[in-house]
């Protein structure tokens, strides 16, 4: 039976570590970078920032006078630390809806997406 020498073990371990580090680092390098904004806490509530920004572009076309800082303040107040899903169903119950590209969205979600679009420049 063939045995693996200590030197080979060290080589293999080192190579694996380099591959893992390279993979993670590569993903970090490839990931889209966003400049920090004062409303990153809100954008972080959606699972895919790029998708949110794509939706947000269509929402911005529907919403007049969109001022991100002021919107962020009112959204935080509306969400009030609750799970996002609760805020969204409350939006629907109260008839607070917004359209984006024809999609009927809970207003809170649509506006967070609009913030994501603003953040994406």
């Amino acid at each position, binding site marked *: 039976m063939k045995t693996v020498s200590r030197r080979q073990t060290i080589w293999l371990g080192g190579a694996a570590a380099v591959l893992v580090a390279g993979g993670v680092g590569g993903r970090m390098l490839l990931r889209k970078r966003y400049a920090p904004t004062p409303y990153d806490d809100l954008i972080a509530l959606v699972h895919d920032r790029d998708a949110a920004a*794509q939706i947000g572009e269509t929402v911005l076309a529907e919403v007049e006078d969109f001022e991100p800082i002021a919107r962020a303040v009112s959204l935080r107040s509306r969400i009030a630390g609750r799970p996002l899903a609760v805020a969204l*169903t409350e939006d*629907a119950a109260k*008839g607070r809806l917004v359209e984006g*590209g*024809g999609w*009927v969205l*809970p207003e809170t979600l649509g506006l967070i997406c609009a913030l994501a679009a603003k953040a994406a420049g």
Partner: protein
Amino acid sequence: MGAFIDARTVPSGTTVHADVAIVGGGPAGITLALALANSKLKVVLLESGGMTFDAKTQSLYQGSKIGAPYVTLEASRLRYLGGSSNHWGGWCRPLDAVDFEERDWMPYSGWPITKADLDRHFVKAHEMCEAGTLYYDAAAKITGGIGKPLALGPGGITTRWFQFSKMRSSVLPTHFGERYAGDLKKVSRLSVYLWANVTRLGLNPSGTYVRQLDVATLDGRKFNVKAKACVLAAGAIEVARLLLASNDIVKAGTGNAHDMVGRFFADHPVPRDNAVLVLFGGEPAPFYLGNQTTHGAILRAGLFPSEKFRRDHEVMASSITVEGKVELDALGKAAVATTANALGVDAANASYHSLGCGMEVTPDPDRRLTLTDERDALGMRKLKLHMRIASQDFDKYRLTLKELGRQLIESRIGMVKLNLRTRDEWYASLDWGNHHMGTTRMSADPKNGVVDANLRVHNVVNLYVAGSSVFPTYGAANPTVNLLALVLRLAEHLKEELP
């Protein structure tokens, strides 16, 4: 035994006598003839065509149109025994009570009768349509084995039901001519004249009584029918034409002293692919996607604005149907994934379906039929339709769709995309129900309509109209079963009125 008579064999100059003359052998005319069968009344039914399609006869329907996109006047009707039931889809649904009400936000609304006045006639009307037991909004109780209605949260849109005429050869519902020809022949005091075109209502000099109907055949025969009562059952376009063209005594046309004949023409716009329905949990129950047969009825579910929602939000009736599957673009995929995730719902098996609809339109006096100087093969003046659709009709239907989207989100089961916004977009998607209505609307006051609550033409004592041309407003229900209920009510009235 009753008789089927080829009018082309009737000598010119003949006078046929009857108690009741029915003009038109479609569902209304046939139902009326059969409903009068158990009376002592001698009935004549005059049908323009024969037993099957004939191109020359069909061409008598030709006319012109201007305005909003619409089908040609000869395209959506059929001129032979059975009338337009010969290409009927078989969809049935009674109108709602609110459809009969005067609504201050809906101009020209309000029937001179209520839904309750018609209710007792729906069982027989349904029987004529061969649509089985009436279930409609009780259908959820018998379809549990097929699936569950959408668990929409509280709100304006609810699952309601269509029923269907019995299918033949898998697709074709009741063709009234073919189906009831045998029954008509069994009625001893009924004569059915085929190939008999009524070209003029001959009034007395004061214009208050129809003395005779002039009948012509395409091969040149001319005779007349004298009856105690005449019932026009030739469809909303032809009835208006016959009234307007019968203008030798009353210059504006028979029954048209107040310039109401031919106005308020209506149909149900059917905007195809007007929205996308997303259900996060997968496919809707099969009864949303197609007809299901159970408990002796053929059923399909649709999504309808409730009567309360219609009143509260001042929207018109509509019937939303779930149609074929669609693919989403990148934005759609992002919207579904983002929304489902934010709602804490798994959308891995989400389904995407196109939505269709039958829409009600606002009554409009300027959506109307008028005579032109062009004449058909029988010398009758042809019609021109000025078609119009109010922008608010589309806007209000959009509001209804948005309510569906709201409820889907609140109940965390799905979402909606609205595909159409501009008038051009709506027009590009537009199909039609081919439900001609409104041209001889029912009214208590002769100034506001053409026929009274008993379907008698105002100020013409022996002239009646049977069919959806008498609908003052239109709802979103398919008209056939509703107009048959009106016809059965008219039959009762005629039996009482005529000695």
